[in-house]
């Protein structure tokens, strides 16, 4: 895909934000976000629930006024030129908000009127979009009868009716079955290949890794890491050795592991260490544990993943709760709900560990 880079001025970035903030009373939901998304790029916005992803998207899509900072989308200021921004963006918000009483056809026709698309073009455009998202057969059925995946696909079709230059997808696959997720990923890739700039928020590491050219990790309303997934993983460096020992031996095992590198957050009941000497150190670790009388129940070596990047940046893992290695528990900022470290309303697992 053709990604624009180089010496861009602020207006050249399809999405640009500087010091973007949104406070709700004392809660700093978004606390100084800087973003420069290049044209033709898929940009992943990764973070747990309450990190500030959706609030940022709502500001960029003109649905929420920033408390402070500047944001420009498609070259227009989101506050001063909100209407110009709206004409150029497609938005699929977190919960596919689609009227269940209307049919797919009717909703596309309504959306077309809202965007001022000439009547003569509506039929062809609707047919094209329905075909594209695989809903031609269901177009005359009420949306209330659609599955979650079908609703998401229709939501995507609705957001594309006016051929936007910039597309915002807020957790587009949350709650979807694996097949529907793959279908949606494929569609995002296709749109991007056609030149659409996509900002995608997600709490799924795999999704960000699969789709995004660059990602930003947001935590407590601040961007803590930003870059290409490969670069970010390389920054973490050492692979992670994860071991499981009986609960009573955890403290002793932690002491042994410390001598091989820094401890890393893992799922509860296991320990992780970043092997500073690389994978070659594994036999030495096993021997040391054995010498100390540890009973190793499980051992795995993971190459650096986005989860490691996330853990290093935030001190906890996106997948699962805080580790037994003594690193802090995840805490919510946005609305203070404290739902970190858990996936919201989904039956899917997308862990990156090997």
């Amino acid at each position, binding site marked *: 895909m053709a990604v624009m*880079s180089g010496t861009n001025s602020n207006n050249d970035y399809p999405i640009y934000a500087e010091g973007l903030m949104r406070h709700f009373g004392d809660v700093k939901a978004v606390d100084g976000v800087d973003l420069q998304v290049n044209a033709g790029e898929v940009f992943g916005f990764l973070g747990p629930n309450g990190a500030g992803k959706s609030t940022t998207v709502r500001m960029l899509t003109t649905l929420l*006024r920033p408390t402070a900072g500047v944001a420009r989308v498609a070259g227009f200021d989101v506050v001063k030129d909100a209407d110009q921004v709206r*004409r150029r963006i497609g*938005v699929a*918000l977190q919960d596919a908000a689609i*009227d269940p009483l209307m049919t797919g056809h009717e909703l596309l026709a*309504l959306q077309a009127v809202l965007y*001022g698309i000439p009547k003569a073009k509506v039929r062809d455009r609707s047919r094209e979009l329905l075909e594209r998202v695989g809903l031609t057969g269901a177009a005359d059925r009420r949306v209330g009868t659609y599955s979650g995946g079908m609703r998401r696909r229709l939501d995507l079709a609705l957001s594309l009716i006016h051929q936007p230059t910039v597309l915002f997808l807020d957790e587009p696959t949350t709650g979807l079955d694996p097949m529907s997720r793959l279908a949606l990923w494929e569609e995002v890739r296709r749109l991007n290949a056609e030149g659409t700039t996509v900002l995608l928020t997600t709490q799924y590491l795999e999704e960000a890794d699969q789709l995004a050219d660059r990602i930003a990790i947001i935590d407590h309303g601040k961007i803590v890491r930003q870059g290409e997934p490969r670069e970010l993983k390389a920054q973490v460096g050492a692979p992670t050795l994860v071991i499981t020992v009986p609960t009573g031996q955890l403290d002793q095992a932690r002491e042994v592991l410390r001598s091989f590198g820094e401890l890393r957050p893992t799922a509860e009941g296991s320990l992780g260490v970043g092997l500073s000497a690389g994978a070659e150190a594994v036999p030495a670790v096993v021997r040391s544990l054995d010498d100390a009388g540890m009973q190793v129940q499980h051992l795995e070596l993971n190459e650096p993943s986005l989860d490691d990047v996330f853990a290093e940046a935030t001190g906890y893992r996106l997948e699962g709760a805080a580790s037994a290695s003594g690193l802090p528990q995840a805490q919510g900022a946005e609305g203070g709900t404290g739902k970190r470290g858990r996936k919201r309303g989904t039956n899917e697992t997308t862990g990156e560990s090997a």
Partner: protein
Amino acid sequence: MSTGTLTPRAEFAHSAEASHAWSQTMAMSKRSIIAIVRQPALIIPSLIFPLFFAALGASSFNRATQLPGFPKVDSFLALTLAASVLQGVIFGSVTGGAALAVDIETGFFDRLLASPTSRVSILIGRLAGNALFGCIEALFFTLVMIPFGVNIRSGPAGIAVITLAGGLIGLSIGGFMAAMALRTGSAEAVQGVFPLLFVSMFFSSAFFPRETMQGIYRTIANYNPLSHLYEGMRDLVITGWSFDAMLKSLLIPIGIGCVSIPLALLALRRRLRAV
């Protein structure tokens, strides 16, 4: 790679000008009608309940029409037609207001706001749907009561005015409901207003002429604009065509609308400003 500039690829980007506000309003109005028609569980009570109430009144109070102060009527039904219309329209307006609140709750309202739609179109479209449904309800009650002995003495012109009045009542009561929905964003809060509106009918001449009332009850009914609305519509039914009755039937809901619709616009403005 070279530096690029953003050229809007959307060929439709500039076509959604103010001139499209009318089509947007019509599209929103169509949607609100679709929502009403496709939820029979919501509209059937608004059609059945007033008829049931009218039938109950007719069987219980028919002899009351002989009381001094009572206008000369063919049956109690003729007296309650206007009340039936208002009950039905109140039901419909509450449903419309609740639907707007549901749009806010579910995020559909955000979908509309994320598009370059005229904000006022969103509200006016919803109210236009209410108005159309009000017309349909008024005509429905009138036509249903005719076979049961209600003689519309003002003829087709009177039926047209009653129908139009139904639409205007839908618009004006719908304005209050929309204001409530936009202010609270809660369908429950909107539905909670229904008993208040319903009680206000009992403090008017909906079921008995003001001449038969006494004391504080009569005083409240005198000041209740609904009393004058009922009397205008009632005169068209039981007396015949008069300019005065027509004006009362149409101008009172317009007057109420002059209060409720600005309130709704204010609530919309506050909601948009709050985000």
